[in-house]
């Protein structure tokens, strides 16, 4: 018997697995390199394909079908999985809602903080701008006055580079009813109405004013008390301060 005849003789035993373990390994190692044996093994397997059904069928025990499905799919079958995972689903939903709530709250808080930061930033930039005018002022004018027993004053920091003024008015009580404190620019073409100054005794009024577009060169400023309804282009009321550059 040549070596290959041994394989030829033992093909059926290999298929039905009655070879001793050592012989079975030898045969298995032979197969990849022998097309003839592979082909014949395939034929034998095909011929005997239904032989296992010589065994009588067995009645599956209750629950086996579900276990087989779960085992093959690698997870609980869908119906079981769905019901058993309700707590997890509810937990996830609750977490999601909680997360959304927290997000909304934090988002709102974040927006508030953003607004606050923007406001502070604007205030800071304003303060820096004001300070830059004061520090860069080419002229500082000051006037003191008395009104109804109150000692007040007006100070002007004039910045010739930015053509703006910082004006501080202090020491005055709130304007009498029906009247307002009115700031005026004194120009070479006459008086130009500026801003209305709102005051109380405790807090000075602080204003940053650009130069008026009309009226020509600005020569100075004045603070008067005017009737609230007065819109005349020239001061009509009492003059509290009058400063010339």
């Amino acid at each position: 018997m040549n070596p290959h005849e041994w394989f030829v003789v033992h093909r059926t035993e290999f298929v039905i697995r009655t070879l001793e373990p050592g012989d079975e390994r030898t045969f298995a190692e032979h197969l990849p390199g022998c097309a003839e044996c592979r082909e014949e093994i395939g034929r034998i397997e095909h011929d005997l394909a239904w032989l296992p059904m010589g065994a009588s069928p067995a009645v599956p025990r209750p629950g086996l079908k579900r276990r087989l499905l779960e085992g093959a799919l690698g997870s609980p079958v869908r119906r079981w999985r769905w019901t058993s995972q309700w707590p997890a689903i509810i937990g996830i939903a609750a977490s999601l809602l909680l997360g959304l709530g927290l997000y909304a709250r934090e988002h709102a808080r974040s927006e508030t903080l953003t607004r606050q930061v923007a406001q502070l930033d604007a205030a800071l930039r304003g303060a820096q701008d004001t300070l830059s005018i004061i520090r860069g002022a080419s002229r500082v004018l000051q006037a003191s006055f008395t009104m109804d027993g109150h000692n007040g004053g007006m100070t002007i920091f004039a910045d010739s580079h930015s053509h703006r003024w910082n004006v501080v008015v202090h020491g005055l009580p709130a304007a009498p009813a029906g009247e307002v404190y009115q700031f005026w620019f004194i120009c070479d073409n006459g008086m130009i109405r500026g801003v209305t100054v709102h005051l109380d005794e405790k807090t000075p009024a602080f204003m940053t004013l650009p130069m008026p577009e009309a009226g020509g060169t600005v020569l100075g400023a004045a603070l008067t008390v005017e009737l609230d309804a007065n819109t005349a282009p020239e001061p009509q009321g009492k003059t509290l301060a009058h400063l010339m550059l």
Partner: protein
Amino acid sequence: MILRRNAAAGSGDTSRAGGRLLSLEGERSLRDRLLARDEQALVELIDVATPWLLGITQSMLSDPDEAEEVVQEAFTILWNRVDLLDANASGLIPWLLRITRNRAIDRLRARRRQRGKAQRLESLGALGDPSVRPVEPDEAARPGWHVHESVHAALRALPEDQLAAVRLAYFEGYTQSEIAERLGIPLGTVKTRLRLAFDKLRGTLAPLKEWVI
């Protein structure tokens, strides 16, 4: 269990026996759906094939729990390596049967290595069939029953000494030397009986593949 002598064992006329396991079209459809990872196809296959897979595993292992584990492994292999189905020409059920039987043999041999064959044989008693159970009235209607009857008839046609060797070899998973020891006959005699028996079985069972699916 394999050669149950009872009224349900027919004459081998398969045309009058119970339903087929799967029609040719049905098997093709099932195979396509498995390849498409259709879980419902797996459910249908489990319904049809499990009784027969359990039959062979319980016959070999004589342990219902271990038999179910082997069937479980077979279905898991099928689902995870469903791509191999295309290349397998012998059909879906035969492929599953072969996987199942091979896994059962592996377990049997591992078990025997651990316990020792003699002890195992004593615990099982004799060659007989301890797991034989009564035939249920509606069993003949079970899908695949006609295949069982055909195989049954082919086995019954073997001489008794060859049948005994086939039963030990194929349905109980013994090697040739183990069979020789169990039957108290020379190894060469076992080989001869098995060779003769399987030559006959091939001739008898081969036509099954033409119509069974």
